[in-house]
């Protein structure tokens, strides 16, 4: 069965430091992969997505992610974290795609705290 694992429940990073959030997936075919962010009181916002092609994907807010098939990973990175990046981050895989769309399977999320 398809699944997504985010090993880190909570991470604290100093402002200006680099960030890497881990995501591992289990999926039989070529996965469609997503990273979403949820700030307090807000809905989930798409940071970036991977469907095919270049395995390094650029997203909004200075985030990037790299798809590594051999490791079944899709880790999210940012070179310099800002205090406004404090939020909860979700990795997701598109499961059971059909002609119209696809259900998403989410990891449990990683809460990012940023210290000054």
């Amino acid at each position, binding site marked *: 069965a398809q699944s*997504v694992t985010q090993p880190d429940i909570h991470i604290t990073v100093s402002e200006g430091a680099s960030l890497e959030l881990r995501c591992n997936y289990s999926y039989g075919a070529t996965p*469609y992969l997503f990273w*979403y962010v949820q700030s307090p*009181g*807000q*809905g*989930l*916002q*798409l940071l970036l*997505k991977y*469907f095919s092609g270049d395995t390094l994907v650029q997203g909004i807010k200075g985030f990037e992610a790299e798809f590594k098939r051999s490791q079944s990973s899709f880790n999210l990175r940012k070179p310099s974290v800002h205090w406004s990046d404090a939020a909860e981050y*979700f990795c*997701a895989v*598109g*499961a*059971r*795609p*059909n*002609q*119209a*769309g*696809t*259900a*998403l*399977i*989410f*990891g*449990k*999320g990683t809460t990012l705290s940023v210290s000054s």
Partner: protein
Amino acid sequence: EAGVTQFPSHSVIEKGQTVTLRCDPISGHDNLYWYRRVMGKEIKFLLHFVKESKQDESGMPNNRFLAERTGGTYSTLKVQPAELEDSGVYFCASSLRSGEGRETQYFGPGTRLLVL
């Protein structure tokens, strides 16, 4: 362009009562999804509408949950009767119809349901 809206933002009800959640998708989006996050767990898929038709309802937990999308616009999710384990955050998402599931789902802020 207005985003996905959900109403109410919060709902507190007693066990055995009925609650109806509403989602207004982005105009023109054929796909509409419902997801739920129970405290401490991952966000889980409930069902997927394409216009007014249920494309995939494999995630619906039981027959106490009834989702409708009359006219292919807004959707309602009714829980009747509500149980304690139904507490959580209910998210709605919408997207344009896209072949093979290559879509971006736009999420609403969620409805926080507490069943006492």
